[in-house]
């Protein structure tokens, strides 16, 4: 059994295999890497680092993308609830 670590992804606790990278996490979540931004512990990542950056116990990952917007209604900041336009 591979060792498991706990990380936080978009505000939710999640188990993750020790030694996996940000790229692994995105694949596991079925998120295409194009047009997403990833923030690791409040630091915005360079897309080219996704495959090199290993996740560590307690890491906080935010994965963001574009949604419908223009008028700020029903909108909350990062860390204040998950949002996806219907």
């Amino acid at each position: 059994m591979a060792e498991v670590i706990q990380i936080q992804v978009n505000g939710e606790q999640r188990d993750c295999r020790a030694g996996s990278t940000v790229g692994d996490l995105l694949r596991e979540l079925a998120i295409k890497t194009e047009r997403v931004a990833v923030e690791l512990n409040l630091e915005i990542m360079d897309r080219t680092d996704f495959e090199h950056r290993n996740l560590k116990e307690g890491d906080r990952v935010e994965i963001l993308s574009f949604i419908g917007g223009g008028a700020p209604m029903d909108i909350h900041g990062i860390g204040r609830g998950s949002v996806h336009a219907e």
Partner: protein
Amino acid sequence: MQNDRLIIAGREFTSRLFVGTGKYKDFAETQKAIEASGADVVTVAVRRVNITDRSKENLLDYIDPKKYTILPNTAGCYTVEDALRYARLARAAGVSDLIKLEVLGDERTLFPDTAGLIEAAKVLIKEGFIVLPYTNDDPIVAQKLVDIGCPAVMPLAAPIGSGLGIRNPYNLKIIMEMVKVPIVVDAGVGTASDAALAMELGADAVLMNTAIAGAQDPIAMAEAMKYAVYAGRLAYKAGRIPRKLYATASSPIEGMLQ
């Protein structure tokens, strides 16, 4: 009007209507409305990806960034720090250096915090962003934003989503005369005549979301807005007649029966 192109930061646009993508029923409706509006510039927000339900589609699968200029915004940001964070995330998500900068001052009015706006704009411009600021109808603030390097300014017509129309045409007119960059009237438009009026005043473009998305038939309203912006622009270029208190006959008196 063949060569009447709008140019902002070296980018050329055919349509003078910019549209938001919020508040639509679904992405299919968003796509149809945008198409009907004829807009080139489309605003989007940056938010968390829904990781529990990956069946949700991506907005950019419906709005092709090759066809439209995607303008991410910092909507919902009330501090300089938040606005900077979202602007940087938008750029990291990989569309361009364009950002519609919003730093809001108050939840009820959604009026801009212009001091915060100028502060955030300075930082982002230094980082190479092309900053299009959502600002008040204050000519002095508009000029300051231009002085620090904004290639266009986007003053509001009325509070976001209010549909009140052009509340302060005189201030907007002063901004248009004072400021030597394109003016995009952003927010507050309610219906087609509001958009036409903004353009007749001399605005270079109009940005709207709720007026279209909130209409009973958003796709029909999108088309109405397309014509309104176009008609308003034509009328502005044509030059309207001066207002007079009394009538001036348009038919000749000569040749009338004795």
